[in-house]
């Protein structure tokens, strides 16, 4: 996550989509996957290389919930607040996470480990309330389970 930005790496990502007509979103996703977020100077570099206005690139980067233009924690926790989770106690889950992590929605813990975000439906309503930690989904959450899950990532 703290890998320094090497423009060769960005070039490598750009080259993956040479044949694509409109690769911007794919490129941004790949950059984020490598570095965790999309730094402004990288966005500018991508804009120049693709020959599109940097405002367009920034517009895309800020449109999508999964794209981050600010540094985020090593683990991004996304808590679902949509109705199926809401009616099964998502509010309590969010409160418990805030308490355990000592941060509010949209914030990152001081040690840079966790970012807490609220999201729309994760599509695992069968095990509501649910959350995602990076790519991994957890369901049937209770306060106790949240403590257990956080412990896995705290090590």
């Amino acid at each position, binding site marked *: 996550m703290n890998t320094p930005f090497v423009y060769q790496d960005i070039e490598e990502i750009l080259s993956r989509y040479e044949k694509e007509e409109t690769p911007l979103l794919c490129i941004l996703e790949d950059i984020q996957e490598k570095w965790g977020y999309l730094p402004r100077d990288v966005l500018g570099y991508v804009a120049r290389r693709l020959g599109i206005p940097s405002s367009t690139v920034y517009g895309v980067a800020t449109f*999508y919930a*999964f*794209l981050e233009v600010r540094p985020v924690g090593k683990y991004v926790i996304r808590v679902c607040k949509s109705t199926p989770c*809401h009616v099964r106690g998502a509010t309590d889950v969010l409160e418990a996470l805030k308490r355990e992590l000592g941060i509010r929605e949209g914030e990152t813990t001081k040690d840079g480990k966790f970012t807490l975000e609220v999201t*729309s439906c994760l599509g695992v*309503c069968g095990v509501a309330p649910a959350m995602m930690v990076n790519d991994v989904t957890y369901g049937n959450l209770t306060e106790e389970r949240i403590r257990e899950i956080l412990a896995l990532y705290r090590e």
Partner: protein
Amino acid sequence: MFYRAHVLVEMTSSSVALGAAQVKEQLEREIARAGLGNEVKVLETGSFGAALPSPFVVVYPDNVIYAPVSVRDVRRIVEEHLLKGRVVRELLFAGERGGGVATFIPPSPLKKEKRVVLRNSGLIDPLNIEEYIARDGYLALAKVLTEMTPEEVIEVVKRSGLQGRGGAGFPTGLKWEFTRKAEGEEKYIVCNADEGEPGTFKDRLILEGDPHSVLEAMAIAGYAVGANQGYIYVRAEYPQSIRHLEVAIAQAKERGLLGERILGTSFSFDVKIRRGAGAYVCGEETALLESIEGKRGEPRVKPPYPPQKGLWGKPTVINNVETLANIPPIILNGPDWFRSIGTPTCPGTKVFTLTGNVNNLGLVEVPMGITLRELVFEIGGGIRGGHGLKLVQTGGPSGGTMTPDLLDVPMAFDTLPRYNSALGSGALTVIDDTHCIVDIVKNFAEFFLHESCGKCTPCRVGGKRIVDILERISAGAGSPEDLEKLRYLGQHMKATAFCGLGQAAPNPLLRCLEFFREEFEVHVREKCCPQGVCTMRPKPQPKKTVRV
């Protein structure tokens, strides 16, 4: 290699969220420890729906189902069952079938179920194309390519009466025909797997449990309309669907079932995956096209519709995952077979996802025309905790609000609009009577506020105003005029918003204002929340935060 037993573990996002990956790892470890590594093979399979609790483990050829299984149970299953051949009775799935020994192959679906779309889910290993082929997979594609003209394919789909399962219910055959007739050398097939409607996860379980059925259908659609390139747009929240699709595409290409000159014919078709990045509005088909084109996912002006001008301005078919999964069986069994299921005006099955305060959560595939009562009280096992039913939201926040008086309306695309409701994606969010209607409507409104793309004013500003007023009401600071304001805002948003998202957003609000009028009025008149959910305390002024 010959294995004397196969152990299938349900590996879907839902079951993994409950520890299925650990169960699988533990199974492999224990099997190796018991020295059975060369005799017993562990495989992954998809969801079997609401009929089986997650995660489940099936032992073949003994046809024994253990469900739900936790890591702690694994050692006993391996030592007792796999090593000593004794079924572990306490861990068996008792389920619906009278609590006896649950041995069945294939697992029998629930009584009212009819499996077309989910024909393979939970039975095959989705990561192995041979298991799909063994169950007549790619036979429909072979039939189409060798025995039928594109026009005949479109005719069969038209005659089947298949309607788009994404929510709009548009006749699929017509969509294909428009695209076939549209002028242009290059055409595209796009599969909409941006299933963002809260409460919906059918497409995810289809992609995770049977990805080839969608790929095969896309190739058939490509042949029918004259397209050689397909795109599947999958939402970022579904990493496992993406993984299964990647494997499936690679396997299909390896066997010449996708790619150049499929099955030695002159037809070529390739499929690429496009990953979304967390934007509900991209489920709207033109916003989805914008997103594939690498732009902000803002909807386009319609017309022109995608069959005329779609991806990069070329004629494009956009079909939902569930719609596509219906195609191979329709080709193989014929349109009359399909028409024999469901209602005369809305044939086929529908996959519903039961969510919220209902006893049995999960997905279930039933013929169109089933009633909400059957779904919630028979298949869903009734309301949790013995509470009463307040409402069922169908098709997510943009769908319809079904109040208890509508429990016996047949569920189909053409029947629900008569009751100001909609079938939508098939999500059923059951809400019990301990919930406060203001809180629920606020939850819907917050969702739309969060997901509005900001392109048009009615949705961007109207959504914000609605949330503000609802917050005021739940904080005990509402006035009777607020209810009138909500109705006014809702009606204007519905009439003037640019796309389907903004037009549908006020639907639950308007319906609930009408049906639960009294509860709203108690909130604003007596400043009291009958369910005790709203705080009814005006929010304290935010403290000034000092930035360091």
